[in-house]
């Protein structure tokens, strides 16, 4: 994907808006924006954009076990009509049906939302492989019917230590991309990259981040440098890259882009160097 900057001018005034142009296999740099207490998602997005100096062109939102009936009034409505891709996670179970997903994605499609869907990210922590594959068989055709993609999202730890990539992989007809949930554990992305490359699908990060409180700022920066250099090397080698989503929130740690002054600079480097 390419992000073009469109500039509007009149008299001495000007404004710039990003325009996303897609191509095969490309990926975006974005964030899972997790608002703080008494903060709206809209404000949290504005804060992130101001802090990083870059537009938020991909945003992840977790709908959990709820599939809304339509886009109106939902979090995704904030992305409609904007140069921003919605990365949506769903954990369908009791009360969720493929028909409900069809209805919701149809309303997103009519509103002009560009979306990528993650079904049960980190599924290996919650269910056996056969159950996940049944879910994919039921829901992924609905995703594809609306022209959207499905990202198979597992943790890097699970991919390596539990063999989750191989055991949960639903097949290329049901997974368009691989997204790794990646936090500092000392493990590299090499195994995940090899798995993705063998299947000819883009490799991205479903979420990533570092908490200086846990890891120390030097380790956190080193982790982010590793992520940058790893995907820069993939880009230089012409390998497929998916979306890279920074988890900017507080959940089992403080991973916000605002956490340390080094983080917005790292985000800018990702944005400027890694989008394809």
């Amino acid at each position, binding site marked *: 994907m390419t992000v073009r900057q469109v500039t509007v*001018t009149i*008299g001495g005034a000007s404004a710039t808006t990003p*325009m996303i142009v897609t191509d095969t296999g490309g990926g975006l740099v974005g964030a899972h924006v997790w608002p703080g207490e008494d903060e709206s998602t809209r404000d949290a997005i504005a804060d992130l954009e101001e802090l990083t100096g870059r537009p938020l062109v991909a945003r992840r939102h977790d709908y959990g076990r709820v599939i809304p009936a339509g886009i109106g009034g939902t979090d995704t409505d904030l992305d409609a009509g904007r140069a921003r891709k919605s990365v949506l996670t769903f954990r369908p179970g009791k009360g969720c049906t493929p028909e409900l997903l069809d209805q919701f994605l149809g309303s997103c499609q009519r509103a002009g939302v560009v979306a990528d869907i993650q079904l049960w990210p980190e599924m290996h922590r919650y269910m056996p492989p056969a159950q996940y594959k049944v879910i994919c068989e039921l829901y992924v055709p609905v995703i594809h019917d609306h022209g959207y993609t499905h990202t198979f999202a597992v943790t890097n730890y699970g991919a390596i230590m539990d063999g989750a990539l191989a055991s949960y992989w639903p097949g290329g007809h049901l997974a368009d991309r691989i997204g790794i949930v990646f936090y500092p554990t000392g493990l590299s992305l090499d195994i995940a990259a090899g798995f993705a490359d063998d299947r000819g699908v883009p490799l991205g990060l479903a979420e990533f981040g570092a908490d200086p409180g846990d890891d120390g700022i030097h380790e956190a920066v080193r982790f982010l440098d590793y992520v940058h250099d790893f995907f820069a090397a993939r880009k230089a080698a012409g390998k497929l890259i998916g979306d890279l989503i920074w988890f900017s929130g507080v959940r089992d740690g403080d991973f916000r882009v605002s956490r340390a002054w080094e983080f917005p600079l790292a985000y800018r480097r990702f944005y400027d160097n890694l989008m394809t």
Partner: protein
Amino acid sequence: MASILSAALDKAAYAPGDTVTLTVDYAPDTPGVISQVSTVTVELKDAAGNVLASSPLTLTVNVPQAGDKVSVSDDGNHTWTVVSDNGSAAVFTTSV
């Protein structure tokens, strides 16, 4: 000074070959377009010339003049074409 109130694309993302529509709401310092409003009255008369019914119609013509004009460009060097401009909202298109 003129100001740009909003600039909105019609889709979140485009595939190569797509047509892009950009709507710009703006407030000019010196209007580049003025609206001339005329009222046209349609009358139905009988043979004696008596008006049986009439219906006024409002006709608005946007007339360009020397003043602030919106222009659009991008870093991909696409050519943007103005589709309409009523002095406060302008619509542009291009293809990518």
